[in-house]
C-alpha cells in the first residue's frame, strides 16, 4: 500500500495546508493554487504559540481580478496534546492593501481554525474573512481524512481527505466538494485536490 502511494506522489507533484504556527524559529513557505485563486504565504513562528507573516492573494472569484497583500499574525489559542492525539484552535488576524481594478484600498483579515488528529484520522474546520471598504469576502472549509497506513517519522506520510469549501461571494461554484490527496515527507508537505466541478487545486508547503 505504501509503495502505491509513493508512486502516486511521484506521478502527481503535490498540494498542502498545515498548522499556521509551527515550532519555535520555523519558517513556513506555502504556495496554493486553484483555477480562480492563487496564494503565497511566508510565516515565521516566533514561538510555538504565534507566527508572523505575509500573505499574497490573487483571485477572480467575484469576476474582476483582485490582489491582496496582507501582514498577518496567527495565534495558537489552545492545544491539547494527548498520548495518541492532538487538537488545536488557532486565531488569525491581519491587515494590508487590496489592489482592485482602478483602486487600492485598505484590507483586513480575520480567521478561526480548529483541528483534531490522531495518526489515523484527521478533522479540521476553518473560517476566514477578508474585508475591504464596503465588502467582505468569506471562506469556510471542513475536512475529514484518514491515513491508509501509519507513516514513519522519516518516511512518506499519506492522507486521503474529503474537503467541503464554501466561497459565499464567488460568482460561480460557491460550494466545492472533493477529495484531496495530502502527503508529506520530512519537512515538505503537498496536496492535490479536485472539486466536484472538476477544478484542480495544488498546495505546497515547506518548513525551514
Amino acid at each position, binding site marked *: 500500500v505504501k509503495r502505491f502511494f509513493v508512486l502516486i506522489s511521484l506521478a502527481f507533484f503535490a498540494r498542502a495546508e*498545515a498548522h499556521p504556527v509551527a515550532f519555535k524559529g520555523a519558517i513556513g513557505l506555502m504556495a496554493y493554487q486553484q483555477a480562480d485563486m492563487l496564494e503565497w504565504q511566508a510565516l515565521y513562528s516566533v514561538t510555538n504559540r504565534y507566527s508572523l507573516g505575509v500573505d499574497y492573494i490573487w483571485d477572480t472569484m467575484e469576476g474582476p481580478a483582485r490582489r491582496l497583500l496582507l501582514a498577518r499574525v496567527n495565534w495558537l489559542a489552545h*492545544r491539547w496534546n494527548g498520548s*495518541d492525539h492532538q487538537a488545536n484552535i488557532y486565531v488569525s488576524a491581519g491587515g494590508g492593501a487590496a489592489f482592485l481594478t482602478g483602486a487600492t484600498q485598505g484590507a483586513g483579515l480575520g480567521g478561526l481554525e480548529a483541528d483534531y488528529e490522531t495518526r489515523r484520522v484527521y478533522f479540521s474546520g476553518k473560517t476566514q474573512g477578508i474585508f475591504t471598504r464596503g465588502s467582505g469576502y468569506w471562506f469556510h472549509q471542513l475536512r475529514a481524512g484518514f491515513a491508509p497506513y501509519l507513516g514513519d517519522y522519516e518516511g512518506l506520510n499519506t492522507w486521503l481527505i474529503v474537503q467541503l469549501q464554501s466561497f459565499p461571494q464567488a460568482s460561480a461554484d460557491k460550494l466545492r466538494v472533493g477529495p484531496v490527496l495530502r502527503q508529506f515527507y520530512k519537512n515538505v508537505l503537498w496536496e492535490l485536490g479536485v472539486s466536484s466541478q472538476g477544478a484542480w487545486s495544488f498546495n505546497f508547503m515547506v518548513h525551514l
Partner: protein
Amino acid sequence: MKRLMALLLLVSSLAHAGDVTVHVQGMVCSFCAQGLSKKFQSEKAVETFKVSLDEKVVQLKFKQGQNLTDEYLKEVITESGLNVEKIVRSGS
C-alpha cells in the same frame, strides 16, 4: 569537602550519561514534529537521534562525555509544540 563535591559531581555526571528516551505527548504528525530534527541534529552533544511515532518517544544517544539536561530536553520539545510525559535515562 572538595573530594566529596567532586565525587558527587562525578556520580551525577555518570547518572546522566548514556541514552535517553523521552516519552512525548501530541506527537501524531511527522511533518509537525520536524522541529525536533532541526534542533537535536544540530546539537553537538547528540550522536544519534531517533523518533518513533509508534512508541511516541524521542531517543537520543550522546557522544562520549557529553549530555543534555532534562530541563533542556523539555524546553526543546515544548518549543516544538509537544509535551514531555517522562524522561527515562539508561546506561552509564
